[in-house]
């Protein structure tokens, strides 16, 4: 057996096209049947600033960030200091660079990585041509790495067509030349990084954000009210044309207050509806989420988490919105909170969120995060879908209709406006069974209990989350913590330290029984999460759901957890 994976970084200053290099490489590898993932690092500048594409390709599904990068391709060295601390390299890494770009900077050189030099400028291309058509060092770099892993050139060609699609023939030809030159360069290097063949199987090329958008469409969402915010905007930008093609609406609201209230209005109208935001927007939505709880209006709210508090770091990841997701409205306003367990699962979880919102008639929050949302991957096709959920609308004939009736089933019918004889008012004030505002303690308690019962009755079945392995050490985590935790567990299992990973898809209401079962037989429990205060652990403690000895493995973002970090903290904490 040969090499099964490669991690590589393409880095460069504004205009160097490092991102395109990464995309080209990953798409070519994906076309050849490899799995892979790409995340992006940006500099401070709004656009055209320095950037790095972090790519992994593998014969197996891959989603965890690597401990270190094996290959670092510098398209140029400008402002590399901005990134260097976020890109782990070591003396086993290889740096490929062009001496024309200058010396290897200290921030990189100190890793002691082996440096290989090439000239990204094809000597067959005249200076004039280069000046006219650009250097295309990025395309060359992508071809170089693709050739190193042994990709046939046709996959690079097809990836190029996919990426450049509409560009002129001239541009296209220049790029193809750069591809060819890059492939030649590879042959001049004294390394071989050839990958084993990929396994067959249907796979998709998709980002977490697009998967979530797709899940929403699958679930039946046909109305979206939103306001732009990083890192959620690309989700709605992908969704916008498609929801319209399906006869739905996507409205750019004046602010998040409008967005969420538009969603409640559309949903009242009988159309599954959603909004998409990040922390600051979620903070603004908490009042209306409470209205959704009280008036029992379905709604899906996707929060693509970024580093907080306040504006924080808009473009980078964290998992620190758990508190506000679970607790963030005034009054007793319990709600449903879900978290996807992988890029592909963004589709599953979001579709489930729509079904839950519709059946339980309440807001459902989906906590995605930047690391998962903005990562694009060649992943196993997310074809598995949750069982569909539908809103109850039929009323019992003959009986006078009471929207908020107290009875055995707390999920009372909510007929669509337009239905004769069922006229009802959605009410955010404390109300009686008919929905009229009242202030009596009994009615207040009755409605609070009705809503609590709705949540208590949720039986998530196998959807509550996932549990891999049966080791006596358990890592409980969620969202983008899942992939590195699994990778760490795989390595520990290999080393005989049996470790299981428990990923919570349903965070609230807490699936107590499932979690208890999943923890059966553990002797050590660790909660892994990317925030400062250990929000998940505190929440689990509040619910008496973990042993007293449970340890916290929490730290803020924006750097992703890497398997080695988890492994070493598992050792440390014990010491």
């Amino acid at each position, binding site marked *: 057996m040969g090499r099964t994976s490669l991690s590589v970084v393409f880095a460069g200053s504004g205009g160097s096209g490092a991102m395109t290099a990464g995309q080209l490489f990953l798409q070519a590898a994906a076309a050849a049947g490899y799995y892979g993932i790409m995340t992006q690092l940006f500099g401070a500048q709004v656009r055209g600033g320095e950037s790095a594409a972090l790519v992994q390709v593998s014969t197996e599904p891959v989603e965890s960030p690597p401990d270190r990068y094996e290959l670092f391709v510098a398209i140029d060295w400008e402002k590399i200091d901005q990134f260097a601390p976020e890109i782990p390299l070591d003396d086993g890494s290889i740096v490929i660079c062009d001496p024309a770009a200058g010396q290897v900077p200290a921030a990189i050189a100190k890793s002691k990585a082996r440096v290989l030099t090439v000239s990204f400028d094809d000597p067959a291309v005249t200076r004039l041509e280069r000046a006219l058509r650009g250097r295309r060092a990025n395309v060359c770099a992508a071809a170089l790495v693709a050739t190193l892993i042994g990709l046939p050139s046709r996959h690079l060609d097809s990836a190029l067509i996919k990426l450049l699609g509409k560009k002129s023939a001239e541009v296209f030809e220049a790029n193809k030349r750069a591809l060819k030159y890059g492939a030649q360069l590879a042959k001049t290097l004294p390394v071989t990084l050839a990958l084993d063949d990929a396994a067959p199987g*249907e796979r998709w090329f998709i980002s977490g954000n697009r998967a979530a958008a*797709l899940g929403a469409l699958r679930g039946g969402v046909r109305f979206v009210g939103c306001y732009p915010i990083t890192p959620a905007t690309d989700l709605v930008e992908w969704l916008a044309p498609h929801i319209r093609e399906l*006869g739905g609406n996507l409205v750019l609201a004046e602010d998040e207050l*409008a967005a969420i209230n538009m969603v409640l209005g559309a*949903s009242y109208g009988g159309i599954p509806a959603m909004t998409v935001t990040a922390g600051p927007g979620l903070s603004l939505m908490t009042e209306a989420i409470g*209205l959704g709880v009280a*008036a029992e209006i379905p709604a899906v709210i996707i929060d693509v988490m970024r580093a907080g508090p306040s504006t924080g770091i808009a473009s980078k990841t964290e998992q620190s919105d758990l508190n506000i997701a679970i607790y963030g409205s005034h009054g007793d306003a319990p709600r449903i909170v879900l978290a996807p367990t992988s890029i592909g699962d963004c589709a599953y979880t979001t579709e489930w969120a729509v079904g839950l919102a519709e059946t339980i008639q309440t807001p459902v929050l989906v906590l995605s995060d930047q690391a998962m949302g903005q990562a694009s991957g060649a992943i196993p096709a997310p074809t598995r879908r949750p069982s569909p959920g539908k809103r109850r609308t039929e009323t019992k004939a003959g009986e006078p209709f009471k929207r908020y009736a107290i009875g055995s089933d707390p999920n009372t019918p909510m007929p669509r406006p337009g239905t004769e004889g069922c006229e009802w008012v959605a009410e*955010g004030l404390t109300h009686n069974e008919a929905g009229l*505002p009242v202030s009596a303690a009994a009615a207040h308690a009755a409605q609070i209990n009705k809503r609590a019962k709705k949540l208590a009755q949720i039986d998530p079945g196998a959807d509550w989350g996932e549990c891999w392995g049966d080791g006596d050490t358990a890592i409980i985590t969620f969202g983008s913590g899942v992939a590195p935790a699994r990778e760490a567990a795989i390595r520990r299992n290999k080393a005989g330290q049996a470790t299981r990973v428990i990923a919570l898809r349903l965070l609230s209401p807490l699936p107590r029984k499932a979690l208890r079962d999943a923890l059966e037989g553990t002797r050590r429990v660790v909660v892994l999460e990317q925030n400062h205060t250990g929000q998940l652990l505190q929440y689990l403690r509040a619910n008496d759901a973990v042993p007293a000895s449970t340890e916290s493995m929490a730290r803020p973002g924006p750097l992703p957890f890497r398997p080695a970090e988890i492994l070493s903290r598992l050792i440390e904490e014990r010491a």
Partner: protein
Amino acid sequence: MNLAVAEAQGCALKAKDFSSGAHPIWCPGCGDFGVLAALERALALLGRPPHEVVLVSGIGCSSRLPGYMNCYGFHGVHGRALATATGLKLARPDLEVIALGGDGDGFSIGGNHFIHTCRRNVDMLYIVMDNRVYGMTKGQPSPTTESDWDSELIPGGSRLPPFNPVAMAVTAGATFVARGYSGDPQGLAELIVAGSKWPGFAFVEVLSPCVTFRPEEFEWKRKVRHDGVLVENDRGAAVSAALSDDGFSLGILFRGKGPRVDHQPPTTTLAAIEEQFLLPSPDMA
């Protein structure tokens, strides 16, 4: 169509078909009773049955109105009625959507939605029961309150120039703007009918006295005049008129052009959309 005529002709629906029979919490004499009556009449005249009508409101005395009518309703949070109504109407263009509430709800906390809804021109009606005070919270000055109105919170008055709802709506891009008076349910019903029929966003400011915190508004019945001049299309002229007016001229004050929001039928399928993500099976040769 004149109301009296319509009723004489024996329209199928009667005002009382729209009454829920619930007892309003309003103070005796509150202007909002007149608005309720006018709305019931207008809806009967419009001829849409109760189950096709949705009233959307925020929070305030005036915003309680949906509970007193027999039709669908959404009593949301303070200030967001227009956002909720916009979502509803875009999602369900087949319904008759009417947003309503008070001056505090609409022009203070809801001011942003007001100006952006005027731009958006979604086909619905917005009725503001303007009593120039926050009634429900027991008497603080609202944006439309006169600058010298004395209150506990601001003794001596705010000294701020009152918000001019008509001028703001026209400047912001509204295509139908009218002013009515709660003490004239017949005239008001006619404005409501005209606004509902208008193919776009229609805004009706209703002078609706708060007899409890603004007893001096009893005098409005002597101040209102049915002499509002309708300006067509010329927004500048309409704003000038609204700014120089004393705020008591009733009628349709502006009608103009605006974007039309059309509902698009589906043109593709979910399966077709999913296809873009599928990677071609690699030939392993």
